[in-house]
């Protein structure tokens, strides 16, 4: 005899059979079954092994509160561990397996842990992982060695290593009223809010709406409660401003009435529809919230309360009524409250034999007594279960006379045969979201439960969440809450008639039956009542410490069934009342949330990439693309068989000898306009811009407030009140923010607008001694000779019928021009320049050649303007105007920033004819075995075609004073050591004759 399908009943579709596998074995269930109900229907009562002791465990609950029946769901090779079997809807082809067992669930080596139970008591990890402090292993890492084995012996499921191909999405929603929970209270609230014309979202974590109406067996307005719920659902679904979200767990309540919810869109399907996400992570911004989250039943703590077959009474009732499954054929119920009697009668009606109802109370209500008669079996009041028998499945229980007031057991234990023990220790309102959103919950002495705190945000409670346990009350509360949340008056319509047994949900204050044997408080983490008492004896006073020391209430179920019993046992040990001991504050998430859902399209799908207007041309012409921040830029345009070094050396030589072209569209570009634009630039740059004539450009340097170099670039004056500022690619966004910050908060009186025009302009730099001839060959509408277009001059004209603006400036050190046109014309102008350059042997060049030429010239970039260096460190002190203040000028002369031993920009030449690496240290004395004594580091390195040597730029203490001296690079990570000569950073054409030519 064991659990199995009832001959009739349940809200499953018996006409539809579904095949699934558990631990490699195929089973059959029906549409509407959860994995838990389907396994019980197949007589499978042991579904898991426990966390520490590897004890056989079954199904305790029927919902999200499940601590024991955790399984791994497999989709292909993708594993999702620790999913409660009570939350998995079965579908054809579902594959699941049990966890924390080896080699099998039935025969598990780890069960040996049970023999050493006392060793694994509260605080085991804290006591164990300290390492030996005495004895021969003192000071060794022996325990760290053991840790691997210990951690493997305990634990929950195992995560997989395969990439999860599922799609996850985020969703934003706004509503006037969010109703959480769709039991009678939630359905009533949603309707009351919706008839007020408000936008309503009703979120329900289960697949079917209705909550307790699905299994209460009551009648509402003359129809079965489940039918009533279906009718309400249909009504809501037909309202235009109502969104129903089944399979959606609201798991976090944040400031500003913002709530987080997880919708499991297709976990219940064999295949996803095209484009359908697996989960949606909802961010819901609600005007008001109705919390109708119901209550969790809690177990009683007694020895052997974890054997498969011990189940919450409400869950047993639910399996019978909703799923048509009998959790046992011969059932004993053990309770401290009236609600269990309804379950007993429901189980009897479904076909189970009720062996006994054991009530720890001496007196019970008339309603309960009547249901007990209906259920049949013995009624033993003033009794308690003191032990269970059976290891992998319950075979019976022992019961003794019990006095609740004195907690004394008396008389001889009596055995009762049973294959299911349905227990109830009372109900704990699901106040998690309210606790997240507010203050400490309040203890209710009558209900022996924590009720929600006073709202600190705009929420209203309804139903069992609020301590109202009759359906009549919950519907009335829900209706009132919905109306209030919608800002409407409460309806005067007559509340529905409910036919239900007269029962009192208030339990007797009994949490634990103290008898011999392991009595579990937290089934998920194998925390026993004795562990809680041990923690108390060891001095843990605060509940927060108790939680962390014993791990009570941690992990995936977050102690939904164990928190209150744990607190009660702690309070008892401390000789205090439960409210004196207090409770831990609930934190998000209410139930587990896959990380994939939080990452959503951040992972795998959208990686924001920025493409220049000429991107497709580069790719088509053999460029190897390189990621520079978000941008993709050509690194080299390699010829077949060329190495990166060969390619950039060839490109560099071509530029130095003839002409080359490079895409500079990524440079940050900011339009600075307004009557005070020149004044503004004088303040943000270290040098003067108000003196810059129209159609001229100037190189500028910005400092941060504390005097450190920030960014550099050229700024062009296009008109009296209009400038085009260019920034480094990397700092474009930061500079824009910096400028906006100053305009908005520091100098609001300046009439200046800034706008990002980085993407407006395609930019190409034409460099090399033949660049002028190439430009002249294709430029119309303007001359480009030295007179018309001197160094730092600007002209406007047309190339291939497209308007362009050209500035003569140079990063390469050669005669060079930057040509800008509208981004949509970028490829067109680029191709025209390539065509014009063909007779001159033009080549496109990439970042490597660009970098090589700037190193040869000693120009600085972000590698040197690295947030630590000053203008003086970089030999840019000539740019620090003494005629005006500017951002950073007040702080740049501080002692630390002008100290002679600061690192300064120098050049380095490799003396062993081997390449240098950026990031390598510069040392005076080389000692590869014991690298030390860094005096600086290499910031950039290349092979210099003009010098025929490997060179680099470096920031070195003392800087100029070391010119002509020898040092070494020390790069232990890449094992590169060798001699270098420190030289001026101007390797090539220090007078600038080439670019001025």
């Amino acid at each position: 005899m064991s659990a199995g399908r009832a001959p009739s009943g349940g809200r499953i579709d018996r006409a539809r059979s579904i095949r699934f596998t558990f631990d490699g074995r195929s089973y059959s269930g029906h549409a509407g079954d959860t994995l838990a109900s389907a396994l019980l229907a197949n007589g499978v009562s042991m579904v898991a092994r426990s966390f520490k002791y590897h004890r056989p465990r079954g199904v305790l609950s029927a919902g999200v509160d499940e601590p024991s029946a955790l399984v791994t769901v497999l989709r292909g090779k993708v594993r999702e561990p620790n999913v409660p079997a009570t939350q998995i809807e079965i579908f054809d082809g579902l594959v699941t397996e049990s966890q924390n067992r080896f080699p099998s669930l039935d025969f598990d080596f780890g069960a040996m842990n049970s023999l050493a139970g006392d060793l694994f008591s509260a605080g085991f990890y804290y006591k164990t992982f300290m390492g030996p402090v005495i004895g021969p292993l003192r000071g060794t890492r022996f325990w760290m060695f053991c840790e691997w084995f210990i951690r493997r012996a305990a634990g929950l499921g195992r995560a997989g290593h395969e990439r999860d191909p599922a799609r996850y999405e985020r969703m934003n929603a706004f509503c006037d009223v969010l109703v959480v929970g769709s039991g009678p209270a939630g359905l009533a609230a949603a309707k009351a809010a919706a008839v007020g014309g408000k936008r309503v979202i009703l979120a329900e974590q289960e697949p079917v709406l209705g909550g307790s109406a699905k299994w209460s067996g009551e009648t509402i307005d003359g129809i079965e409660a489940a039918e009533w719920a279906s009718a309400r659902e249909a009504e809501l679904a037909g309202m235009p401003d109502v969104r129903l979200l089944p399979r959606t767990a609201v798991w976090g309540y944040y400031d500003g009435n913002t709530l987080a919810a997880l919708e499991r869109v297709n976990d219940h399907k064999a295949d996803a529809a095209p484009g359908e996400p697996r989960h949606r992570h909802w961010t819901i911004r609600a005007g008001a919230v109705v919390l109708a989250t119901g209550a969790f039943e809690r177990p009683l703590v007694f020895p052997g309360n974890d054997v498969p077959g011990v189940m919450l009474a409400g869950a047993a009732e639910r399996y019978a009524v909703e799923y048509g499954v009998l959790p046992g054929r011969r059932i004993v119920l053990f309770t401290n409250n009236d609600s269990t009697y309804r379950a007993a009668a429901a189980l009897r009606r479904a076909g189970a034999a009720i062996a006994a109802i054991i009530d720890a109370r001496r007196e019970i209500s008339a309603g309960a007594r009547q249901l007990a008669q209906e259920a049949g079996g013995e009624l033993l009041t003033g009794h308690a279960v003191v032990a269970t028998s059976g290891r992998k499945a319950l075979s019976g229980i022992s019961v003794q006379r019990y006095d609740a007031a004195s907690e004394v057991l008396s008389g001889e234990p009596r055995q009762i045969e049973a294959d299911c023990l349905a227990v109830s220790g009372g109900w704990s309102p699901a106040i998690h979201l309210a606790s997240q959103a507010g203050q400490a919950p309040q203890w209710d002495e009558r209900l022996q439960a924590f009720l929600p705190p006073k709202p600190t945000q705009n929420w209203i409670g309804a139903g069992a969440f609020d301590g109202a346990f009759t359906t009549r009350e919950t519907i009335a509360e829900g209706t009132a809450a919905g109306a209030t949340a919608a800002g409407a008056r409460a309806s005067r319509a007559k509340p529905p008639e409910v036919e239900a047994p007269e029962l009192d949900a208030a339990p007797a204050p009994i949490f634990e039956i103290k008898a011999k044997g392991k009595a579990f408080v937290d089934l998920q983490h194998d925390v026993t009542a004795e562990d809680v008492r041990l923690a108390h004896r060891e001095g843990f006073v605060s509940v927060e410490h108790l939680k962390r020391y014993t791990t009570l209430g941690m992990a995936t179920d977050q102690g939904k069934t164990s928190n209150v019993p744990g607190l009660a046992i702690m309070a008892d040990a401390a000789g205090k009342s439960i409210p004196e001991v207090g409770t831990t504050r609930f934190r998000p998430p209410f139930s587990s949330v896959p990380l994939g859902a939080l990452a959503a399209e951040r992972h795998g799908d959208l990686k924001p990439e920025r493409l220049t207007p000429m991107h497709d041309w580069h790719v088509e012409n053999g460029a190897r693309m390189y990621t520079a921040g978000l941008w993709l830029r050509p690194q080299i345009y390699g010829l077949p068989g060329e190495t990166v070094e060969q390619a950039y050396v060839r490109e560099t030589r071509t530029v130095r000898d003839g002409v080359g072209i490079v895409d500079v569209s990524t440079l940050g570009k900011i339009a600075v306009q307004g009557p005070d634009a020149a004044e503004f630039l004088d303040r943000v740059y270290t040098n003067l811009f108000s003196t810059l004539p129209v159609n001229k450009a100037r190189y500028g340097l910005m400092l941060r407030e504390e005097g450190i170099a920030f960014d550099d670039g050229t700024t062009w004056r296009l008109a009296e009140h209009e400038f085009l500022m260019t920034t480094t690619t990397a700092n474009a966004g930061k500079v824009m923010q910096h400028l906006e910050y100053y305009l908005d908060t520091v100098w609001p009186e300046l009439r200046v607008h800034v706008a990002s025009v980085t993407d407006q302009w395609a930019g190409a730099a034409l460099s090399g001694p033949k660049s002028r001839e190439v430009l002249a060959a294709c430029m119309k509408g303007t001359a480009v000779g030295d007179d018309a277009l001197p160094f730092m001059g600007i002209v406007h004209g047309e190339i291939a019928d497209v308007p362009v603006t050209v500035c003569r400036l140079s990063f390469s050190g050669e005669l060079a021009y930057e040509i800008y046109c509208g981004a949509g014309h970028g490829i067109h102008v680029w191709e025209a320049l390539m065509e014009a350059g063909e007779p001159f042997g033009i080549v496109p060049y990439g970042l490597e050649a660009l970098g090589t030429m700037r190193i040869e010239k000693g120009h600085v970039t972000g590698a040197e303007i690295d947030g630590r260096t000053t203008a003086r460190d970089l030999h840019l002190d000539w740019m620090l105007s003494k005629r005006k203040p500017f951002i950073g000028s007040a702080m740049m002369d501080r002692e630390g920033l002008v100290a002679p031993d600061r690192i300064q920009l120098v050049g380095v030449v490799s003396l062993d004819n081997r390449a240098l690496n950026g990031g390598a240290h510069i040392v005076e004395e080389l000692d590869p075995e014991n690298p030390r004594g860094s005096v600086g580091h290499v910031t950039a390195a290349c092979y210099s075609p003009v010098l025929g040597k490997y060179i680099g730029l470096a920031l070195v203490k003392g800087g100029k004073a070391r010119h002509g001296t020898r040092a070494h690079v020390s790069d232990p990570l890449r094992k590169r050591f060798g001699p270098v000569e420190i030289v001026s950073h101007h390797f090539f054409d220090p007078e600038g004759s080439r670019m001025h030519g």
Partner: protein
Amino acid sequence: MVEPVSPLGPAHRPGRHGNPASGIGVTLSETRPGSIVEAAGWPGAEKALIAAIRKATGLALPDGAGGGTTAKSRSAFGIAPGKFLIVDQAEGAAEALRAEIPIETGTVTDLSHGRTALRIAGPKAEWVLAKFYALDFSLPAFPVSAGRATVHHDIFTQIQRTGEDQFDLYVFRSFARGFWTTLCHGAEEVGYEVR
């Protein structure tokens, strides 16, 4: 005149895509306006700016954050206090605006090449956009012609509602291809057509 090249490149695949069972939830297209211009007024000069925009384009903007207006081939909407985005299918709006907006009133920035205009239209437009933006796209909260400046991941977007179920999105050109690809992915479940 040389036709500007779309930044969408090979990511623009005309035709029907996504879940065939869903029909066409949204239609996605690039509207390719000839002019996208930002006009910004100095504090206190907002009304003068609105009048100048009206003179230059015929578009009568409401005074207030997020307000906008649409006409047959042009539209405008507020993107920040005293800042407006003006869009015209024809070229030359920047010059026309510059002629009417003196430096004492404000400034004009031509963004015709710098922003890419993408249109999402159809019964599921609000649903698809809600995947990307923390904005209330419902009609009462976001009326026709109104505009919003917002951000999706690192991609800045200005949005104007140009119909009951139609929105025009303005994104930085360099991000446009990546953003378009993501928009298409987001539209897959509802079925979409690219025009």
